[in-house]
């Protein structure tokens, strides 16, 4: 089953390499990894989508915590969270096909962001399912290129995601209280 985690990490050189190296070293099966800035310039945020059972996810979380630069890890799978992926899809489009593509795009609330003589670029943001549906519909027309950002995730409201790692979780030792203070 697919799981989505996010990790707050120190924004320092080499941290992405440490995380990527960990996944390789421990043979973890990662479907996508997205890294970006946060509200704090000292902190980056990684969203990790992985396939596996509960135990696999717990092991990934605990290993992430072993990295000195990883501050917090939360799982958002099956929790009230906003999950988004962005795709740019370049589709073969002779002028007479443009209207059909524009039509499909508007159904998915996607945008056409570039028009060339023989192709258009469709930009779509949404859940992975939604993007995959559009991709399937566009495929018969000829997808020339595609790029996806990988999923990003944010919990709704003020609830946190699930912190499972014992000792690192909010189980009474104040670990996350201190982390939150650091963030503020």
């Amino acid at each position, binding site marked *: 089953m697919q799981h989505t985690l996010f990790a707050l990490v120190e924004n320092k050189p*080499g941290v992405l390499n440490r995380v990527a190296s*960990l996944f390789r070293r421990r043979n973890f099966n990662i479907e996508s990894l997205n890294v970006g800035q946060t509200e704090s310039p000292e902190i980056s945020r990684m969203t990790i989508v992985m396939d596996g059972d509960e135990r696999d996810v717990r092991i990934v979380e*605990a290993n992430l915590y072993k990295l000195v630069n990883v501050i917090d890890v939360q799982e958002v799978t099956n929790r009230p969270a906003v999950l988004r992926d962005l795709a740019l899809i370049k589709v073969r489009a002779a002028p007479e096909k443009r209207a059909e593509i524009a039509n499909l795009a508007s159904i998915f609330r996607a945008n056409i962001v570039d028009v060339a003589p023989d192709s258009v670029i469709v930009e779509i943001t949404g859940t992975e399912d939604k993007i995959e549906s559009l991709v399937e519909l566009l495929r018969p027309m000829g997808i020339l290129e595609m790029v996806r950002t990988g999923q990003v995730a944010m919990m709704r409201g003020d609830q946190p995601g699930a912190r499972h790692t014992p*000792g*690192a979780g909010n189980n009474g030792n104040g670990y996350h209280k201190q982390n939150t203070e650091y963030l503020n």
Partner: protein
Amino acid sequence: MKKTGAEILWECLVREGVEVVFGYPGGAIMPVYDAMLEYPVHHVLVRHEQGAAHMADGYARASGKVGVAMATSGPGATNLVTGIATAMMDSSPIVCITGQVPVHLIGGDAFQETDVTGITLPITKHNYLITSADQVARVVREAFHIARSGRPGPVLIDFCKNAQIEETEFEYPEEIELPGYRPPTRAPRADLEKAVRLIEEAERPVILAGHGVLMSGAMEELKMLAVKTQTPVAMTLLGLGALPASHPLSLGMMGMHGEAYANNAIQNADLLIALGMRFDDRVTGNLRTYAPRARKIHVEIDPSEVHKNVVVDVPLIGDLKTVLTDLIPMLDEYEHEEWLAQIDEWKQETEQRSIMAWPDDGKLYTAHAIRALWEVTGGDSIVATGVGQHQMWAAQYYHFDHPYRLITSGGAGTMGFGLPAAIGAWFAHKDKEVWLVDGDGSFQMTQAELSTAVQEGANIKIAIMNNHFLGMVRQWQEFFFDKRYAATPLTGPDFVKLAEAHGIPARRVTKPEDVRGAISFAQETPGPVLVEFVVEKEEAVYPMVPSGADLDAMIRRPIRK
């Protein structure tokens, strides 16, 4: 006050309590070496950087302090790699400092440039690249803190040459700011209560004591737990000494070459209390059939070890000593007479098979030599080993009654560890007798450090168990490869002459009756001494759980009358 990056490094090392550094100079670390002369730190010049890392490791294991190794960039740094990996696998706290080309040359394939932080990323607990002098104090402070706290491990600092030379204002950072690094200390009360219930209900409990007991200094707590709940204690290789071998509740070593009764106890247990150990494949055998009837409590400081190899019922995440201190008062006293009697019965059977029960056949066996060493040294020597048969015999026949005495590469199984580790251990405990029990194969891997031992006047006693084979691999070939001895017969030098070429007094022993005399000779001769024991060539370590087999499917030593 302004200081150079190199001076700041030494200022910080002195503040960390560093008294000795094991290293080898070279171009990219020369400013550091130059500054060293002004500081009260003793430098040990090794003959190969691998030796520096192992010495730092041996020093750390024997002293409980952080060991420090130093090397130049490029090949100097890559030569440390085996030693770093060895320390990583056994959670040994060392800090390695390597020179690096100036920051403006990084990435340009400059002379002796190697991506050392990249190479050591998966084999360090953490590593740093210092590119300017103002980073030095903070990095060194953090490096020592990370190396020694939580689950200890190696930390590497790659130090650009420009940062060694540059001057900056030196301010020692009192506070450490590591938002992502907070090792757990106490286990939650609710988890402790769950553990108490399992211990209450247990009829056939076994404690599995690992390296964590020693690292946490929880030997007293372990003993209290064992005695209060009358639970026998099996130890991992690195856990030996956690409970005295002579304690009535000690089961000795578990696992591939563990005591048969310890393995039987584990397989028949209804509760395992794992303390600071990680269920390595060498102690579990086949995971599917491992301790099938046992519920499991796992006390561990590293959450990533929980459920990694063995799924447990109650994880207690925290510092072992703290967790046990919290747990023990919550427990009542228990008796397990039937269970202990059953284990005793298995023990009798084992004693029958012991090589110590063999009638004297005039042959020299490694086990006999090690047992004699144990007797002559009163069981109180520090014993460093290489890796292989001699290592297992040392674990089996030198009955460790004290912690921090066995200095051996467990997880990594690094041949050549012994001689440098023994030298490092001697620097930690110059008041103690330090023996190296090595094999002819392991010894030859790092024998260049004999010169280091002589230069430093290291009072180490070297016992080489020479069977003219890579013995453990030969044993596997005997058992599992139809005695096809591929690349295991081994011609060594004349070890006595080799020692003498170094100015080291030496003796060769070929007969059982000369063993004790030679050990006494080594003890009475000051400085390094070498004794070569020419032992039986094709002797095997028993019992043996074949790799991946069930833990109680042991190959046993045939009974000899």
